């Protein structure tokens, strides 16, 4: 355990903790920045279960909960195999966690959750959230999400994330207590910034563009593959009819009967083989979908940059205009239009006392403005620095993962071809015996 000098024993996995013990837990098990949680503990989403309960509007609803299991890494290597700690969470809680992370770490590309509703389905898959296949794939996706977060150099050390994994009760309250919701940028604000920002960092602009393209092309690919899968399913299944007819035909033939009958069985096998093939296809589609949603996360970071840049620009503009106003007031030259100016023209100049007061106010505002610009500048620079580090990390991860995905896709194709060769060779042998 990472021992940061405390004498108290870190107790992991014991849920009957006193507040001070649990404090210590958090302190001591807090992973140092740079190392990740996965080196300390194993995380898995082991099961899924249906529950019924009353929802917010007091109506009965059915939902699925997922079992999160954690186990210290050491325990496994010591040979003892203690029962893992576990708790149940529903999808909405995962969403809450992610929203919290998004707001708290806007400069990071936050791993995405598996899709809320089944999209890009082909006919065999049901779009129903209660469908067991969908639930299973979601379970895998949720596990993947947790592992991604746990292996991220920055996210893995987050308390809320840790307690999500370890504290069943009261976690929601803890999250809300952080007040993260208040920190969230409004949509309108973000949109406004995107339109009005003048000098966003070129790299971020390019990244955003890349995110758009990635999302578009992966969507297209998923659509095409879903339709192709549908058609391929049809091709294979129709071959099953051969099996049936060969069998019926063999009944009226004498010498040909056996060959036909056995060939028919192979046709049935061929038709059935498509189910496994398409299941593997789904897995590939899931890998693509993860990066489809990652593209969104990437764009979110770029948008945040635009926002911080815009706010810096606004602050700078504001400061400039205030300085100008001071100048005008001091020199008497009116370069900028102001109502005061007009009214003073119409109704007479203001008194020197009034001018003095105004100047003083402006000075204060200018000082404040300078501070603001300094702050915003620092924010912006900090953001750009951290974000770019994570974007580079993300790029590497993406290149690696997608390449692996393509390879596994090729492996799947190879397996499909090998099966096809086997079945048709068998069929050919049977036909020869006709």
């Amino acid at each position, binding site marked *: 355990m990472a021992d940061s000098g405390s004498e108290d024993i870190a107790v992991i996995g014991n849920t009957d903790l006193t507040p001070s013990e649990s404090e210590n837990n958090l302190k001591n098990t807090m992973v140092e920045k740079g190392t990740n949680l996965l080196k300390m503990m194993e995380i898995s989403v082991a099961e899924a279960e249906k529950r019924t309960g009353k929802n917010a509007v007091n109506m009965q609803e059915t939902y699925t909960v997922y079992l999160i299991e954690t186990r210290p890494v050491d325990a496994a290597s010591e040979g003892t195999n203690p029962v893992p700690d576990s708790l149940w969470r529903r999808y909405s809680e995962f969403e809450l966690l992610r929203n919290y992370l998004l707001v708290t770490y806007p400069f990071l590309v936050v791993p995405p959750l598996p899709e809320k509703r089944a999209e890009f389905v082909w006919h065999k898959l049901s779009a129903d959230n209660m469908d067991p296949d969908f639930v299973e794939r979601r379970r895998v996706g949720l596990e993947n999400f947790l592992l991604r977060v746990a292996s991220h150099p920055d996210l893995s050390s987050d308390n809320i994330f840790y307690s999500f994994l370890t504290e069943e009760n009261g976690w929601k309250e803890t999250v809300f207590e952080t007040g993260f919701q208040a920190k969230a940028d409004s949509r309108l604000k973000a949109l406004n910034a995107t339109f009005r920002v003048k000098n966003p960092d070129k790299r971020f602009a390019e990244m955003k563009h890349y995110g758009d393209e990635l999302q578009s092309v992966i969507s*297209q690919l998923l659509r095409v593959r879903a339709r192709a899968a549908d058609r391929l399913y049809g091709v294979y299944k129709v071959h099953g009819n051969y099996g049936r*007819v060969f069998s019926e035909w063999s009944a*009226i033939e004498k010498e*040909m009967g056996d060959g036909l009958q056995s060939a028919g069985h192979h046709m049935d096998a061929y038709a059935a083989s498509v189910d496994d093939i398409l299941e593997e296809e789904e897995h590939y589609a899931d890998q693509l979908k993860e990066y489809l949603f990652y593209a969104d996360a990437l764009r979110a970071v770029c948008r945040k940059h635009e926002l911080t840049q815009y706010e810096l620009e606004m602050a700078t503009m504001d400061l400039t205009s205030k300085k100008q106003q001071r100048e005008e007031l001091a020199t008497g030259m009116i370069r900028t239009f102001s109502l005061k100016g007009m009214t003073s023209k119409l109704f007479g100049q203001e008194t020197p006392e009034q001018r003095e007061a105004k100047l003083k106010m402006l000075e204060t505002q200018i000082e404040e403005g300078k501070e603001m610009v300094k702050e915003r500048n620092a924010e912006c620079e900090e953001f750009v620095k951290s974000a770019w580090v994570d974007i580079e990390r993300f790029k590497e991860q993406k290149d690696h993962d997608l390449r692996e995905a393509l*390879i596994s896709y090729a492996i799947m194709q190879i397996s499909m*071809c090998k099966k*096809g060769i086997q079945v048709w060779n068998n069929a*050919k042998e049977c036909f020869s015996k*006709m």
Partner: protein
Amino acid sequence: MSRSVVDNTVSSGNSSVAIPTDISGQILDLDEDDDLEVFSKDTSTTLTDGSSFNASMQTSPASMINQYKLEEDADTKDIFVTVDNPESHVTAIETYITYRVETKTTRSEFDSCEFEVRRRYQDFLWLKGRLEEAHPTLIVHPLPEKFVMKGMVERFNEDFIETRRRALHKFLNKIAEHPIFSSSEDFKIFLTAGTGELTSHKKQGPGFLSRMGETVKAVAAAVRGVRNRPQEFTDMQEYAEAFSQKISSLDKITQRIIREQKEYLEELKECGPTYTLWSQSEEELAEPLKNVAGCEDRCYKETEEQVKHLNDHLIPVLHEYVLCADTLKAVLRRRDNIQVVFEGKAEALATKAADRDADSKVLSLAWDSLVGRSPEEVKQQKQQKLKGEIKEMRDELDKAENRLEWANNALKSDWIRWQKVMRSDLRSAFIDTAERNVSYYEKCLAVWESFMQSQRTDAEGNGKVDSS
């Protein structure tokens, strides 16, 4: 070299040619087989009921079976026919296609070794009709259909012509391989005669009216219905029905597969380009993505060819046998009709014989005495007349019985032959299809394995661990 027996069916309208005995001598010289009884002597070639089908296949039933045996032993094919080179002809009235029919043969009844003629679909139709007329209970391989109504295929569409050409080629080869048909005079003329010669030969055939008469008879016979059909023919009927259903199903299934494949191709077409598009936004990933795009494109091409092969090779064979199934049913019907004719004649004879034995001439005697003839005289006259009639009917009945026996045996032998050919054809077609599928998957496998290979060498090049 053994030869098939010359078909003595006289296809010209000259139906009173007796078989010269010297020819039989020649043929017997060439045949090793002593059992072969080529000709029975007391049947005449003239048929009094004016039917146009010549049951002047003068071979006895036993010899028919021996002929088949002979043909099977003969592995050396002595006649090769090809149909190719379609050309279109435009006249004032119509446009039509002719095909080149080339024959190479060592058979001595042919004047030369090589022949080249041009024939149109109508000519093939004529030949088939002639063979069916001459041998109503033999199974003639089907011709491709006149029009393909399903896809509203235009008659002069390239694919349609090519499909038809292949089917016509098969048709002639099946005729050439048939022990009886290949020695048909009509077949020979079809292969060798010039266009004008063929036209005049066609005109010599039994006229339209006599054929009509035959059709009317057949319909009448069908209405009457056969009484005592031997079980084996009923079995054949059931088989023909079942076979027809199964082969039609296979045809439909295969067409459905082709349709689904084509729709799959439509989607697959977009895969490669999508990966290519993606590769344009990427740096590290560009190369593997382009590679995958290439693989998808290659697989697309292979799939396209595989579908084409299915369409060009399996479908025509299945289609042929759908038509064959109809032929089987028609042949069985014709056999039934021959039996009906025989049964009718037998019945008529029995009635006449009963008449002769009956005493009930009271009324007629009364009439005769009225007109002034002596009862004895009249009775004698009547008896003579009846005797004559009965003899005639008996002769006819014998002929009909022979015809029936011959038809039955012909059908039985040909059925066996047909089954063998069917089995062989369909087996080849299915094996071919299976092989093609294997080859398709092997090609796609190679495509993806080359991708894996490229990724491995890349990984090794970059110093990464080989991930397999």
